[in-house]
Each structure stands twice: as structure tokens, then as C-alpha cells.
């Protein structure tokens, strides 16, 4: 069985600056993997490359939905990547602020819908049924994520933690097999973080979605992840289980600075 996400030798240059330097990374089916590293290590750049927002300078990127049908995703547009089953959230929340919560989730269903302009105008039976189904499905996703009390609220009026969760809900709505979460716990208080913890586990268990997340909250990462990848200055410096990472000298050095390695 192939890893659901397989990245080989990914390199990204911005002008003269090498933001990613030959990164190898893979996520297995049903796994929760984490990508950590100090600020500016290139984690978000990594996400942007594999989701098609940036064009990497070199390297190969593969996805295998359900561990089969390996596809190379180099050169795909962001929406094509999403269509093929890899969804993501953003570090700085990017919701559709002036749309309702439900509509935000419905947007996620967009690529799984068919209706075109004629359908919209004539509202034939197929379109009506599709709409009805999507509304229902989106509502159910909101229930799962625990946002059902906000359905018709504008996204911008949601509390911060709820906004983060709404981003996850929207990503879930695209029916991904792998979900990329960019700092999902950033700015959350302890209670919200532990709720998020539960939610991520639930997504893996119930929806069978693999997860790759970027996070700074070490407690969160250590308790949740099966495997951890560590980056610093665009290079991968370590990978392994939480236990291995905790005791890895390179990681400690990266986080605490050169002079502490004794």
C-alpha cells in the first residue's frame, strides 16, 4: 500500500533564497503526521507547494487516494489538487467572511457538484435535488464539527475558535482523503485546544481521513501525532515518533539555539 502523500526531494527557491531544500516526506493512510519547526522554517511554504499555490523548483509530489492510484500532482492548480482529495486550512484564517457559515461549508461541496449556468437558471429537477442534498450534507458536517448553532451566521461574526473549526468543516466538505491543517490550534485557549484534539482524532477515526498538520503547540503535537517531521531553515532535520523527536539533539538545537547542545 502506497503512502497517501509522498513527497520526494521537494525544493523551492524564491529568487536566491532556498525556502525548501530537498524535502522528503510521506503520510500513510490513517496516520496523523505533524510538521514542526521554528518560525520561518518553511512549513507553510511546504503546504503551499504541495497544494499548487506555489510552483516548486524541483522535486516530485504524489498522492494516492486510499493507498491506490498514485498520481503525480506537480503542476496541478490548487483547485485540481483539492478535487483529487487533498484539502487544507490556512494559518491566517481565510473564510468567506460575508457568507453564512452554511454557505462556507457548501463552497467546499462545490467541486462535488455538477449544476452549471443553465441548471441555475432553469432549476431543473437534478439541480433542485442537488441543492437540497448539499444543504443537508453541509448541515450534517456542521453538526459533526459542532457548529450547528451558527448555521446562518455570517462567518466574520463567529468567535475565533469557531472560525478555525469552520475552516476545517469547509475542508472536510470537499471529501478529502488527506487533510492539511496549518496551525489549527493557534490562538486557542486550553479548552478549545483540547476540543480540537478530540475533533482531529474523530476525523481520523470516523471519516478515515489522514492528517498532516503544522503546529507550534508541542503538547498538542506530541499527544496527537503518530509521526513528526522537523524542519529548520528549509531543510528536514529529523523525523520519527514523538518519543524519538523529543530526544533528538538536532531538534533541541534547532528549537533552543546552538549553545545548548552540550
Amino acid at each position, binding site marked *: 500500500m502506497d503512502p497517501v502523500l509522498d513527497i520526494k526531494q521537494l525544493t523551492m527557491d524564491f529568487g536566491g533564497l532556498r525556502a525548501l531544500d530537498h524535502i522528503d516526506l510521506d503520510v500513510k493512510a490513517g496516520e496523523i503526521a505533524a510538521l514542526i519547526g521554528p518560525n520561518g522554517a518553511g512549513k507553510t511554504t511546504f503546504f503551499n507547494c504541495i497544494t499548487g499555490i506555489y510552483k516548486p523548483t524541483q522535486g516530485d509530489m504524489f498522492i494516492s487516494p486510499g493507498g491506490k492510484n498514485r498520481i503525480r500532482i506537480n503542476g496541478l492548480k490548487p483547485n485540481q489538487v483539492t478535487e483529487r482529495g487533498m484539502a487544507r486550512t490556512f*494559518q491566517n484564517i481565510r473564510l468567506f467572511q460575508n457568507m453564512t457559515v452554511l454557505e462556507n461549508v457548501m463552497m467546499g461541496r462545490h467541486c462535488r457538484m455538477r449544476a452549471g449556468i443553465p441548471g441555475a437558471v432553469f432549476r431543473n429537477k437534478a439541480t433542485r435535488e442537488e441543492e437540497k442534498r448539499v444543504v443537508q450534507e453541509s448541515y450534517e458536517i456542521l453538526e459533526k464539527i459542532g457548529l450547528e448553532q451558527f448555521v446562518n451566521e455570517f462567518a466574520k461574526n463567529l468567535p475565533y475558535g469557531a472560525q478555525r473549526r469552520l475552516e476545517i468543516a469547509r475542508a472536510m466538505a470537499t471529501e478529502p482523503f488527506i487533510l492539511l491543517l496549518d496551525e489549527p490550534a493557534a490562538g486557542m485557549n486550553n479548552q478549545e485546544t483540547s476540543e480540537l484534539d478530540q475533533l482531529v482524532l474523530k476525523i481520523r477515526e470516523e471519516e478515515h481521513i489522514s492528517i498532516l498538520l503544522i503546529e507550534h503547540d508541542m503538547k498538542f503535537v506530541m499527544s496527537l501525532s503518530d509521526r513528526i517531521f522537523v524542519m529548520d531553515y528549509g531543510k528536514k532535520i529529523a523525523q520519527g515518533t514523538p518519543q524519538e523527536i523529543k530526544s533528538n539533539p538536532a531538534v533541541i538545537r534547532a528549537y533552543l539555539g546552538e549553545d545548548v547542545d552540550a
Partner: protein
Amino acid sequence: MDYFMELFLGGLTRGSIYALIALGYTMVYGIIELINFAHGEIYMIGAFTALITISVLTMLGLNKIAILLIAAVAAIIYSSAYGYTAEKVAYKPLRSAPRLSPLISAIGVSLFLQNYVLLAQTSDFLPFPNLIPQFKFLKAYGGIVQSSEIVIYVTTAIVLVILTFLIKFTKLGKAMRATAQDRDMAMLVGVNVDRVISFTFVVGSATAALGGVLIASHIGQINFYIGFIAGIKAFVAAVLGGIGSMPGAVLGSLVLGWTESFFTGYISSDYEDVFAFLFLVLILIFRPSGILGRTDTDKV
């Protein structure tokens, strides 16, 4: 080759004229991302104020250079005042409004100022005296360049240098850059954003006024509508160069001026503007942020 040279100089003149207006355009845009439709009208107001001052002073019998200087100062004061007032009345209350709302109110200001001058003064073209003295040394070159053109080139260059200096090295310039980058952040670190924006309008309007005086005395006539066409061209030039960038505005203006001049000279002036716009489209397709614009990718 002579023909080429003359077209080149013609383009340079056009370009410098666009640049004098485009500089203010791009400055205001850089700070509040507003396409200031009324900027051309500020230029027109400057020209009118100068004309009125000149006429009054001529009747008093002052010396030519003195008249020119006083008129330029009056134009700068009044244009700045109009720019300042327009900002206070029509744009400031719209700071937190949707992005397009200030654009519409700028259009309103533009239309208002046009009609205001039309009603208070006249709809006719008025002759504008040429107060720029003839430079003797130009005689030798047989009228390839006129002295007013030289003055325009030089002024454009000086204004560019002064503005660049102002923005790069003064405290106010730093505040302006900070405001342009992130208005909320600038406010947090203690920049008086309102004052910075007002100041930008004042400086932008002052350059427009200077342009108004020089261009009007080069062309020799003004009416209430000159601002609109000039404004559109300057806007195109500013975008071409990369809106928000000072050297970009000048470069864009020059490129636009030369494009028009050479196209007219070698092909046909029938499609002069068509070509200028096509050229703009082409440049923007290959450099979506203009020639000197920052090509930063969207922060994700």
C-alpha cells in the same frame, strides 16, 4: 535618425507631462489604495488658480519670472488645499467602507470640481501665457526642444528626487511607508495615520499643481475639462510603471509617451491610443504588477 530623435524628444515631453500628474496619483494610491479620480481635477484647479494669479499680477505689472514663481506658489497652495479638503470631506468618512465606495465618491468629487469651474469661470478655452523665458543656448539647436520642455524635464526629475528623498529619509516618509504597508499596525505603533494621509494628499496635490502650471504654460490653453483626460492618461502611466512606486510612475509615463510618439511617427496616429492600451495590456500580462511594481505573491 533626426526623425527618430525628434520623435524621441516628443515622447519625452509627453512622458514628462504624464509623469508630473502620475506622481501624485501613485502617491495617493500607495497610501490608501484609492484610484483618485479627482486627481486630474486638482491639476486643473492648479492651472486655473495660476492663470487667475498671473492675470491679476500682470495687470499690476510685475516682472515675468516673479509672476511665474508667485503663480506657481499660489497654485500649489490652492491645489493642496483642494486636495486636503476633498480628502476630509469625501474620502475620510469612508475609511472603513467597502473598497469601491471611496472610488465612487472620488468620481463625484471629480465631476463636482469640473462643473464648479465651468460655472464659476467659463466653459471656453482660456489662453495661458507662456511665462517660461526662452533660453538663449537653445537657439543653436534650431528649435528641436523648447525651453518650456526643458523646464518640464528638469522639474519632473527634481520632483522625483525630492519625493523619493522625502519618502526614503524623512520621519514623515517612514510614517507614510508604514501606513502604506499596514494601516492598523502603523496606528498601533503611534503613527498619526490621519495626518499622514492628509499630508500625502497635500504633497500629491502640490505636485499636480506644479504640473498644472508648467503644462498649461507649455500648451498655452486650459479649460475645465483638461484634468479628466490628463488624469486617465496619468493613471494608465502609473499602473504601467507599477502603481505605488515613484520611479515606476515616471518610467511608466515615459514609456507611455514614447509608445505614443513612435507609433504616431512610424505607423499612424489613428490608432495611437489603441496601441498604447494594447501595450499596457501586454505589459500587464507579462508583469502583472507593472514594470517596477512589487511582484510579491499573495501572502498565504
